[in-house]
């Protein structure tokens, strides 16, 4: 036995996959599959192409974009609570620019730009004024919702422009554009997370900022980028959501924040940062989307739905969390 065989053994254990690892990895898959089986057996409509594509997938896209947005700040051990307000603000801006300013397609990049600026603001206050991201974004959650609501004047605003609408409502080979946009961005975020410096620093900052700083990285900058990306993706979500329904009400986007965080954590991205990634966030999103859809098909009381959703989220997180890496839970 060599002198370092104990540490070799420990390393080997980490390499060697245990049953618990499999449960952690497969938990959300099993849960998703289980839910789909249950709803297929209990409802006639669930497992039809119409329902899966038009209801489950299309409804899941907004949540997916918002959850992907939130994944990056959480990976670096911050959090962006303002996501749903950015969706509201950018959605309202889109409609106003098209309907009142007649900007047409140009409205889309401007609205997304507004989202990025919102993220930049969050990031700057967080890094330069050293206000914890939880508090900054809790504040901007409220501020941006207020701004968006003032712009709407308190009622639903609409636009008519079918060619622009078709960006969200059209189909390619029978697959809704909305779903394709969602998948495209999903793949894009995976590339960002695993093939770029930005992604690498996100994980590294989430684990230990000092180490990254001493390795010579410009830490502040890389702490701001995830918030800008979050704002950008929420902007995309706001644009697609309003194009789809060609209107923006004062409460679009509301109620997205909590399920998006639930989806992120269910996917295996720990709130303590450094582990997980956007590739798995989609699992959490699908669990929530399927659950919502199935319960609607079963005509379950909406208050009961809230209870079930909450319980499923906690159960999924308990299954997927990597306890080896967590010493203390707060």
């Amino acid at each position, binding site marked *: 036995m060599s002198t*370092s065989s*104990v540490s070799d053994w420990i390393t080997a254990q*980490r390499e060697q996959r245990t049953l618990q690892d499999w449960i952690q990895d497969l938990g959300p898959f099993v849960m998703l599959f289980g839910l789909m089986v249950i709803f297929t057996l209990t409802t006639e409509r669930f497992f039809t192409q119409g329902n899966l594509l038009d209801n489950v997938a299309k409804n899941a896209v907004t949540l997916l974009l918002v959850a992907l947005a939130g994944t990056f700040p959480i990976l670096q051990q911050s959090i962006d609570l303002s996501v749903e307000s950015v969706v509201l603000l950018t959605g309202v801006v889109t409609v106003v620019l098209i309907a009142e300013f007649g900007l047409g397609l140009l409205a889309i990049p401007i609205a997304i730009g507004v989202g990025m600026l919102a993220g930049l603001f969050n990031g700057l206050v967080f890094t330069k004024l050293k206000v914890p991201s939880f508090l900054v974004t809790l504040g901007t959650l409220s501020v941006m919702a207020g701004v968006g609501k003032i712009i709407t004047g308190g009622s639903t605003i609409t636009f008519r422009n079918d060619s622009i609408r078709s960006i969200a409502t059209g189909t390619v080979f029978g697959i809704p554009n909305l779903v394709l946009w969602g998948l495209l961005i999903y793949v894009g975020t995976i590339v960002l997370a695993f093939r770029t410096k930005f992604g690498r620093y996100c994980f*590294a900052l989430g684990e*230990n900022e000092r180490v990254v700083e001493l390795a*010579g*990285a410009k830490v502040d900058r890389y702490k701001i980028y995830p918030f800008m990306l979050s704002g950008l993706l929420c902007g995309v979500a706001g644009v697609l959501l309003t194009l789809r329904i060609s209107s923006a009400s004062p409460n679009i986007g509301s109620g997205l924040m909590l399920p998006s965080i639930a989806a992120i954590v269910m996917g295996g991205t720990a709130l303590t940062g450094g582990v997980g990634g956007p590739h798995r966030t989609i699992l959490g999103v699908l669990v929530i989307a399927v659950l919502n859809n199935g319960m609607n098909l079963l005509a379950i009381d909406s208050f009961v739905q809230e209870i079930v959703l909450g319980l499923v989220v906690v159960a999924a997180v308990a299954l997927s969390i990597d306890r080896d890496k967590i010493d203390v839970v707060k």
Partner: protein
Amino acid sequence: MSSETYTDTADPTADATAGDVSSFRVEGISKSFRHVQALDGVSLEANRGEVIGLVGENGAGKSTLLNILTGVLQADGGQLYVDGEPVTFTNPREAANYGVSLVHQEQDVITTLRGYENLYLGREKERLGVLEKETMRKEAQAFVDDLGINIDVNDHVRDYTFNERQMLEIAKAFHVSQKSDNPVILLDEPTAGLEESGRELLFDLVNDLRDRATFVFVSHELDEVLEISDRIYVLKDGEQVGMTNVEDATTDSLQQAMVGRETADEYYRVPDQRRAGQLGEVAMAVDNVAHEDAVGPVSFSLREGEIFGIVGVEGSGKQRFGRLLAGDLEMTQGSISVMGTELNNPSVSDMVDAGVGYIPKDRKSEGLLLYQSVLVNTSLAMIRDMNGRMPALDLDAEQEATMNAIDELSIKTPGPNALVHGLSGGNQQKVVIARWLAQDTPILVMDNVTRGIDVGAKEEVYRLCRELTDQGVSIVFIGDELPEVIGMSNRIGVMANGQFVAEPFEASPGNKPTEEDLIQEMI
């Protein structure tokens, strides 16, 4: 070295309270983790009033043994006796009831609480659910005073010095075992974070308390073990391979027993040291740099292939000076020139750009992403400039750099994707070094680079430093271990109050200063 000092206490029967009953005894303790035999029939015994040294390389089984003694782990075989009574501990609380407690290597105090609150943590006195703070505070103060520990238990632990925190931990060990009249205090690497003065305080305390407890002292620093212990047990590969009275032991004999082979006379590879004539151009020129009033002004220059040692007592500013060189501490005065480029108040990022890599003292909190792979840790600095300013990573280049590092530094890892957390201390430290080698960093600032790693790994680090300097790399070698700094360096600056006290000592082969030379300047 101090063999004659303790000859009177080395004979346990001389102690009146000892009798024939040993304080504790382990017989044939074995423990395996699946296929790995961590301990194999280890026996040792300590008598009351003794200080027992326990040494061995990383992985020799020291931690496993301590964990079994305190009930954290359960032995597969063998028997543990405390005060002559056979016992089985299933958790640390049971061990504490028999008087056995462990002072951890990593400090285990809660800094936001006061001293007495830490002392009573988990065993608070309360009446009707209300804490009896005043009673606890008074009793705690009396308790530490009685032990001869000079701390104010009403202060917050965050205001304690590193030393005082450790004193508090030792007080806590006595406190949890106060029900027993036979306290056994296990000290796991207690000097790891301490500098010279702190070590003396600790040793004075242990010496003062040796008639009130039995100590087990675990350390990598063999001279310390020789200084404090009465008898020394050596573990190697999970077996007890030797027990010697301190007067029969030397660092060489212990090292030989631990490693199982002859250690080189020239541990620090002094013959390989670059001679003055072999040094290159000036790699780094430090001109009157200072950080407010705390560090500096300091001036010195470092030549290509040179190792410049820096020593000083705790609080001398040598560690902060290292941070200043790394760009981690604001340079409020002076300038620094690296490879001919002048820098004013550089950031860490600027210094890395200029070619300076910093290896911090505490690799776990500042050196490594423990739950990331060897690859991610190795490439963490090189990815900055990868593909120019393009955001994409070059995964092939990262892989290649990591494989090279594993090969050149002989890092023992199952592969580039294994988590750093699972590696031994020595291999972890090699990964920190590899990060700078992966991008050919010409100047390294090392703060206690061999801290807490075993003898074999230390030797490899020394060899590596020699190879690097042969290639023209320059090293600022900050250290608490004087023999190491003396052995490794070409010149040595002695720091006090943030400044060099005199011209740096020449330390060319055959012309090295002694420890006493340096200590005289340090204090």
